[in-house]
Structures are given as structure tokens and as C-alpha cells.
């Protein structure tokens, strides 16, 4: 494999890892606060549709992004009401949200655009355009660093840079601020947070809404940056891969970045079977590559590569002492 092919594959690794990363961070906030969220997939899908639809009608990708975030946060609030206010089962609520999004996006898309459950193709300003980083063209001729800078680091859409920036932001927020400390505490031992006079309900709602915003970014990225418009079921299990990445990363932000890059790399390789064959000499089955993130997660869960221990109060509704 020559260096250009490698660069192209790494480039598409980044592209494919970004929605995973955003959804994974969303899950991180929610689960660190003790709210299991298997509805990442549905929120992403709803955001993809709304951002695609609004970007098409308004012609602005940024308005689309806002609408996508709005749709995702709405679903987050449903999850919040069910699992925080009414102390329902968080897993069942997540399942319901996934189906709600899968059904509603198609029903509404058909009603609005009549194209069989998709939005029309987005063009021009309705999509996020790649940003060329400073000097990218100037130093592209430099051997070594030049192509890496130009191909791999430069030329992505703004959401990519936002997502990458969110990793250190999340780390600082989680481990270096009072909010982060409380958020982590509420996922481990909500009673102690309650005793300290801080509202468990409020903190958990905040976490759930942050998760909604991040899933909104992920969905908007799918419909208005990675592809040009919404198509039915376009999240294609990414929410679950993100969940897998979250476990793989053991609920830590930097590890989440690497887990998502790894899974993004697997997805990128699955798109280029020819490269795999020429590199290692044997043809690796595409289905195996598709299934690999899930298999890896099960292996991690089995505890063969260190134990993944979720936040202790995860999935448990908090009941104030009576």
C-alpha cells in the first residue's frame, strides 16, 4: 500500500469516526450521570432528518444544524421525562426512542418531500463545505508533513473540528470543574449529591440535554456534511457502535476518541476490500469487518482486556429518601 492510499484511508477514517465520536461523547455525558442511553441511534437519525430537511428548505447548513439539534434535544427530553421524572426503565425508553425516530423520520419525510422517505439532494450552502486550514496548499509540496497536513488534517468540515475540540473540552469539564465532579458523582452515588444539597434531577436533565445536543451534531454531520441529504435509516447502527466505543473507552473522553478512530478505521477498511487484499495478501471478508466493532465490544465486556465497569448508579432511577 503506497503512502497516498494510506492517507486516503486515514482521511476517511476521520470522516467516519466523527459521527461515532459525537454520539460516543453524548453517551458519555448521559451515562456518567447515571442515565443509560441506548437511544443515541434514534436521536442521531432524527437530527439527520431535521437538519437535512431544514437545510434544504432554508438553504443554510447552519440553520439545519440548529434544527437537527432541536429534534435531538426533544427526544432527549422524552428520555428525561420517562427515566428521570417518571422513573421508568431507561433501556425501554431508549428502545422506544430509536423506533420513534426510525418511524417518524420516514413518515414525515414522505409527507414533506414525497421522495420515498428521503430529503432532496443538498447543494451549495445547504451543506457544510470543507475548510482549508492555513498554508495547506503552500506546504503541500513539502515531502512528509505536507501531504499529511493537506490531506489528513486540512479539508474537513467545521463539525469535524468542533468534534475533535470537544474531546479536550469534555475532559476538562469532567475532571477539572465542579460541574464535572457533580456529574460523575450523580452517576456513582446520587444520594451523596442529594445530601450535599444539589438537585439530582437537575443535573441529570442537564446531562441528558447535553447528550441531545451532541447527538444533534452527529446527525447533522451525517446528513449535511458526510452525505448530501437525509436517506432512510442513514444512521445505520452508528449509535450502537458509539455505545460499543463508549464501553471500549470505559467512559473516558480521550479513550473515546481513540476507540472511535479505531472503529472508524474498521469502517473505512470495509469500504476498501481491494486495499486489504493487496496489503496482507488475503481477502478479508467484508461482513467480518462490519461485525468487528461488535465482536471487539463483546470481548471487552467479557473482561479479557481489562474490566469495563459502568458508572455504578447507571440505569437506576433516583428515589429521594422517603
Amino acid at each position, binding site marked *: 500500500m503506497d503512502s497516498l492510499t494510506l492517507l486516503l484511508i486515514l482521511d476517511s477514517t476521520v470522516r467516519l469516526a466523527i459521527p461515532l465520536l459525537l454520539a460516543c461523547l453524548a453517551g458519555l455525558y448521559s451515562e456518567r450521570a447515571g442515565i443509560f442511553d441506548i437511544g443515541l441511534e434514534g436521536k442521531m437519525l432524527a437530527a439527520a432528518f431535521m437538519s437535512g430537511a431544514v437545510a434544504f428548505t432554508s438553504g443554510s447548513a447552519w440553520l439545519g444544524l440548529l434544527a437537527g439539534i432541536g429534534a435531538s434535544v426533544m427526544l432527549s427530553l422524552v428520555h428525561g421525562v420517562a427515566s428521570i421524572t417518571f422513573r421508568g426503565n431507561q433501556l425501554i425508553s431508549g428502545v*422506544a426512542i430509536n*423506533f420513534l425516530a426510525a*418511524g417518524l423520520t420516514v413518515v414525515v419525510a414522505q409527507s414533506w418531500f414525497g421522495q420515498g422517505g428521503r430529503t432532496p439532494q443538498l447543494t451549495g450552502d445547504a451543506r457544510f463545505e470543507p475548510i482549508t486550514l492555513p498554508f495547506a496548499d503552500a506546504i503541500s509540496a513539502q515531502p512528509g508533513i505536507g501531504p499529511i497536513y493537506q490531506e489528513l488534517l486540512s479539508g474537513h468540515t467545521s463539525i469535524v473540528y468542533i468534534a475533535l475540540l470537544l474531546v479536550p473540552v469534555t475532559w476538562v469539564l469532567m475532571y477539572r470543574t465542579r460541574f464535572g465532579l457533580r456529574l460523575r458523582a450523580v452517576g456513582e452515588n446520587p444520594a451523596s449529591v442529594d445530601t450535599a444539597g444539589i438537585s439530582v434531577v437537575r443535573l441529570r436533565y442537564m446531562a441528558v440535554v447535553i447528550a441531545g445536543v451532541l447527538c444533534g451534531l452527529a446527525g447533522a454531520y451525517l446528513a449535511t456534511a458526510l452525505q448530501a441529504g437525509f436517506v432512510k435509516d442513514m444512521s445505520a447502527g452508528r449509535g450502537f457502535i458509539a455505545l460499543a466505543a463508549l464501553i471500549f473507552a470505559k467512559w473516558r473522553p480521550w479513550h473515546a476518541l481513540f476507540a472511535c478512530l479505531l472503529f472508524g478505521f474498521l469502517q473505512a477498511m470495509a469500504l476498501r476490500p481491494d486495499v486489504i487484499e493487496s496489503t496482507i495478501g488475503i481477502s478479508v471478508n467484508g461482513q467480518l469487518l462490519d461485525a468487528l466493532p*461488535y465482536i471487539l465490544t463483546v470481548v471487552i*465486556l*467479557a473482561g479479557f482486556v481489562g474490566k469495563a465497569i459502568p458508572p455504578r448508579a447507571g440505569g437506576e432511577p433516583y428515589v429521594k429518601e422517603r
Partner: protein
Amino acid sequence: MNELPKWAEVVLVPLMSLLLAAVLSGLVILAIGESPLGAFQLMVQGALGSTYGWGYTLYYATNFIFTGLAVAVAFHARLFNIGGEGQAILGGLGVAFVCLYIPWPHWSLAIVGATIGAALFGAAWAFLPALLQAKRGSHIVITTIMFNFMAAALLNYLLIGLLKPAGSMDTATAKFPPATHLPSFQDMFSTADNIMFRGAPANVSFFVAIMACIAVWILLWHTRLGYEIRAFGHAESAAKYAGISPTKIIMISMMISGALAGMMAINNVMGEAERLILGSVEGAGFIGIAVALMGRNHPIGIFIAAILFGFLYQGGAELALWTAIPRELIVVIQALVILFTGALDNMVRMPLKKLFRLFRRTEPAGV
């Protein structure tokens, strides 16, 4: 504590949830510019208005009875098996092997063999998640989700390679031999001059599903194992103290659950398609969640809920045929049912509890 009376718990709460889901679905239909009442009429007409419609309704219901029972058995042990979809895919594989590679003389023997094959394959697919839950504490929900994706990838792999007959373009196995053809309702109930259920896929496995309901009822409420499963589900530590092994209960209840989900394949693979096709489970594994929640994890409730969802499925198909409402509307209804009967259960229950408390307080005064 003011608990609801049993009849309210069993009948009123699910009905309220259903009503809420129906009202919201009606609003969705209204919002996309169609008439909810007209849509409902069309669904009733299409799904229940003819033996043909019933044939489809009961065909779908058969799938949902199996997957609903699967979810319910696991629920009783407080395990949430989201893996019904994957287990049903594997069940299909079991049925395909049994039908393709064993020369059956008659369908009545073939269905026994296929049921066993489907159950074994389904149970096998639940084995690892169960083991990881029991021994490693890995969350069963996450592992079964992962196993769903793996099952889809595995079937995809087999159907574009090993199991595809040479020269075929479809991602499907060869057609099963004629001796494995299950009698459809049309074969069974038609008379010479009055053909019933014409062309509808409902078949003899509907009765296997009913038998499965009875078997699950006996298992859960009339055997020692069933008692242990329920005890474990209600109070894990008390069950442990009473000498019930958590590992045993988790393993057995998950494998029964997987077997039931797998058994769905005698209906959709053996009864309808008569070959294994990619994607033939069509989300029935997930609908099992809605069916189990709606049916309050009881076989009778599950039977009724499965017929209801069979009606929704067939009615939804008719809607998509005659109106601009796409089939995905059923997915919305399904989501709302799961939301209200499962996650927002307390929201439905609270006003009812208040209402009953009100009645209880006024009653003695009146007497």
C-alpha cells in the same frame, strides 16, 4: 401503599397506554394531512375484513407470539433480552439446515425437526450473552444488541457464500423440498367450493405458537423452575438465600428466551418463504418487546397483544397500499406503545391510582 386492583392493573393500564398511543398516532396521521378515522377504517377492513386479511394478521401474530414470549420469559428473570432479532435470524438458519439437509418424509415430522433446530440455534445465540451476564456481569442489553449485529453479518456472509445455490442471484438459500411444505390456512380450512384465506401466509405454526403460550404458562406458574425464575426476578438476593443459583437461572431463562425467539423461524422461514432469505425477520424480534410489555408478560396478554400487532402490521401494509401513509407508521405506533407501556408506565398509572384512591375514600361513607 395504594396499589391498583388487579383488574385495573391487567386491563385498564394497558388499555390506557394503548389509547394514548392511538391518540398520538392519530395526531401524526392528521399532521401529514390524512384522516385518522379513514385510516383506521382502512386498517380494520384490510386486516380483519376478509379471511385473506385475517390470514396475514394471524401470520404476523404468530411471529410476534414467539418473540413476545421470548422477551417475557427473560423479563420474568429481570433480564432484558433485546437480542430476539438476532436469535430469530439464527433460528432461521437452524430451520434452513434442518429442511435442506435432512430428507423428511412428511411435513408433520419436518416441523418437529425444524422446531428443534430453530430452538437450538436461537438458544445457542443467547448462550454467550447469558454466560457473560452470569459470570462476568456484562450487561445483557449491550451484549444482545451486539449479537444482533453479528447475527445479521453472519447471515449476510452465509447467504452470499456457502448457502447460496450455484448460479443463483438472490441472497437466499435454495427452496426447501416440497415434503417440508407446511399446510397453510388455505390448505386446512378451504372446502371445494369455498376457498378461505386465499394466498395468505398463515399456516399450521400458528398452532405451535399457541402451544408455546401454554407451555410458557405451565413453565412459569406450575413448575419449580418457573418459580425459581420468578423468584430470582422479583428479589435476587432473597432467591440466592433460598438456594437458587443465579448463574443457573440466568443461563436457563436466557436460553429458553433465545429458543422461543428462534422458533419464530418455523413460521416466517419454513411456513411462508420456504427458503431462508436475507432480512426475513423484519424487526419481529423488536416487536416482541412491545408485545411483552403490552401483554404484561403473561401468555394470554401476549397472545392478545400479538394479534393486535398482527392487525397493525397487516393494516399498516394496506394503508401504505391505498394511501400516502408509508408503512413506517406502524414503527411509530410500536414506539409509542413501548414508550407508554414500558417507560412511561408510571405516568399512566399515577392518575389511575389517584382516581382509585378517591373512590376508596368515598365508598365507606356511602354505605
